[in-house]
């Protein structure tokens, strides 16, 4: 009973999102690591919204002749080989990363949860239902068996680089995770009396699956979106690093690292270091925040 009631309890915590957020912040106060993660998330969100606007230089504008200048008062993080201000580019990068990460995560979430509900609710031992639910699971297994990066690369290689394709690749890859997590929750929820009650009320099985089961099983998947975002950012950077991701002039940490890496050998350490640090901190921050969110939700306010 304990974990199913946790899931249900979590589902029922119907306080407004604002209040939930505030409580989470209070929770984070007591956990320095979560607080750190929350700060990182906050900063990246801010930069995503306002980064390019507050940047001192145009992040995509090359200043000829100003290439490879070390950090100075004018260029806080120096310039890269094309003369673009690294600081401006670094703080403008979150926008594209977060857009890709959020959109792909949301798509993966929506599809993963829906498939998780179908494969979990209709999982049974015989008939068409078994075929469908098992089929979905085997597809998920296959997807998850691929090394993530290789698969992303292949997908993008197949369809060509570009933001849209990166989003598609990421979404596709993350579906199995949300699917499994939701399926687990569905197995518990579908045993609950209120599902039987829904049957007594004359609901069709499909209606029960989406009106009753899904809202109450989406919790665990929700709690796992945050680390997914961190991972998506990392993957976007990795793809961009090899040139298979975001197109060239767009500021993106991975591509910045890629451009700046050769320069590190010749002594211009600033070209790749700063974006690298930012990338590392960001992924860490999202992961910590995600951990904190998970602890916060399940079990509620555990000490």
């Amino acid at each position, binding site marked *: 009973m304990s974990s199913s009631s946790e899931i249900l309890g979590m*589902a029922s915590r119907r306080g407004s999102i604002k209040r939930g957020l505030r409580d989470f912040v209070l929770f984070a106060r007591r956990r320095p690591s979560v607080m750190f993660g929350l700060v990182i998330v906050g900063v990246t969100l801010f930069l995503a919204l306002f980064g390019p606007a507050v940047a001192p230089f145009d992040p995509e504008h090359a200043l000829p002749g100003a290439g490879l200048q070390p950090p100075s008062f004018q260029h806080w993080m120096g310039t890269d080989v094309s003369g673009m201000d690294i600081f401006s580019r670094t703080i403008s990068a979150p926008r594209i990363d977060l857009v890709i990460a959020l959109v792909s995560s949301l798509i993966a979430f929506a599809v993963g949860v829906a498939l998780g509900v179908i494969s979990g609710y209709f999982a049974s031992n015989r008939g068409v239902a078994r075929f469908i639910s098992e089929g979905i699971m085997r597809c998920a297994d296959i997807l998850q068996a691929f090394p993530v990066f290789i698969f992303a690369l292949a997908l993008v290689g197949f369809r060509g680089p570009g933001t849209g394709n990166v989003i598609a690749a990421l979404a596709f890859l993350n579906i199995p995770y949300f699917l499994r997590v939701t399926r687990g929750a569905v197995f518990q929820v579908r045993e609950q009396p*209120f599902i039987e009650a829904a049957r007594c009320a004359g609901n069709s099985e499909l209606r029960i699956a989406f009106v009753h089961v899904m809202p109450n099983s989406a919790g665990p998947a929700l709690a796992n979106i945050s680390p997914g975002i961190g991972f998506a950012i990392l993957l976007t950077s990795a793809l961009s690093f090899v040139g298979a991701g975001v197109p060239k002039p767009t500021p993106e940490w991975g591509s910045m690292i890629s451009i700046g890496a050769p320069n590190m050998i010749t002594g211009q350490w600033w070209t790749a270091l700063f974006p690298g640090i930012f990338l590392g901190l960001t992924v860490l921050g999202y992961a910590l925040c995600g951990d904190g969110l998970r602890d916060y939700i399940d079990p509620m306010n555990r000490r």
Partner: protein
Amino acid sequence: MTEALLQIVNLTKIFPMGHGKSLTAVNDVSFDVGRGEAVGLVGESGSGKTTLGRCVLGLIEPSSGAIVFRGENINRLSRPHMREFRRRVQMVFQEPYASLSPRMRIGRIVEEPLRLRQDLTPAQRGKRIAEALAMVRLEQSSIDKYPHQFSAGEQQRVAIARAIATEPELVVLDEPTSALDVSVRSEILDLLSDLQRRLRFSYLFISHDLTAVRRVCDRVAVMYLGRIVETARTEAIFDRPLHPYSRALLSSVLYPDPKTVLPRFVLSGEIPSPIDLPVGCHLHQRCPWAIEGCATRSPSLEQIQEEHWAACFRAREKVLEPASL
């Protein structure tokens, strides 16, 4: 005698357990529930009462036998007839909170079964919901609230409101008060009793608590390991239980009064598992009345007195003894 609303005919339900074993939850059970009658089904774990309740609702398919409602076998109903059935037969579950969809507002929860009635306009549905809530003595403001905002007793009232919203003919109640604090039980029981008398539907009241059943039911059937061992009018079972199991059940009731003497009619040993049913009478290994024949033959329900049936070889003989409970 009016035709019975619900007829359970030779109902058997066996669950396969793998490795060649099977669990016989319900074993050739037959009884009726008349229109407007409140029938109690009493038993402990393994009695099969919960499975029986779910068969009656069509949530579980029987292995053999039939559930006949208004003359029709419910497992052979067409889609539209099934909808009609669902409208006429409703259920109240044991766990109040778990039986309500946690993310739905009360209004929507109570409204759900009303969607089976396609002849109602939304306005009429709204009126029905309001009436149902009033009848269970909940405030109209409850409509917009969520289940977790209510106490267990109130949640159960919501479940009851949902059950009566469609004006059913039969309500199956599965341990409706067992999960509630003692202080709330009698209120809910009175409410149930009251509703039944006013709205005149039938009850199948499933419980392990004989005294709860006494408050609500006209007739009682006692189940043990998938079989009915005794059935009679409520007062008759309390005054003079004829089956040793019923006696033991009754004597296990602890009245909150130190002056009442606790009868020592206690069964020895554990309840056998329904996977490994004993041969002969299922109770014989624990029964203080057991004689030789009990280990080899299984007694069937026989009429011992007027409207009083028991499945025990010695019931008739014991009737003549003084009722020394």
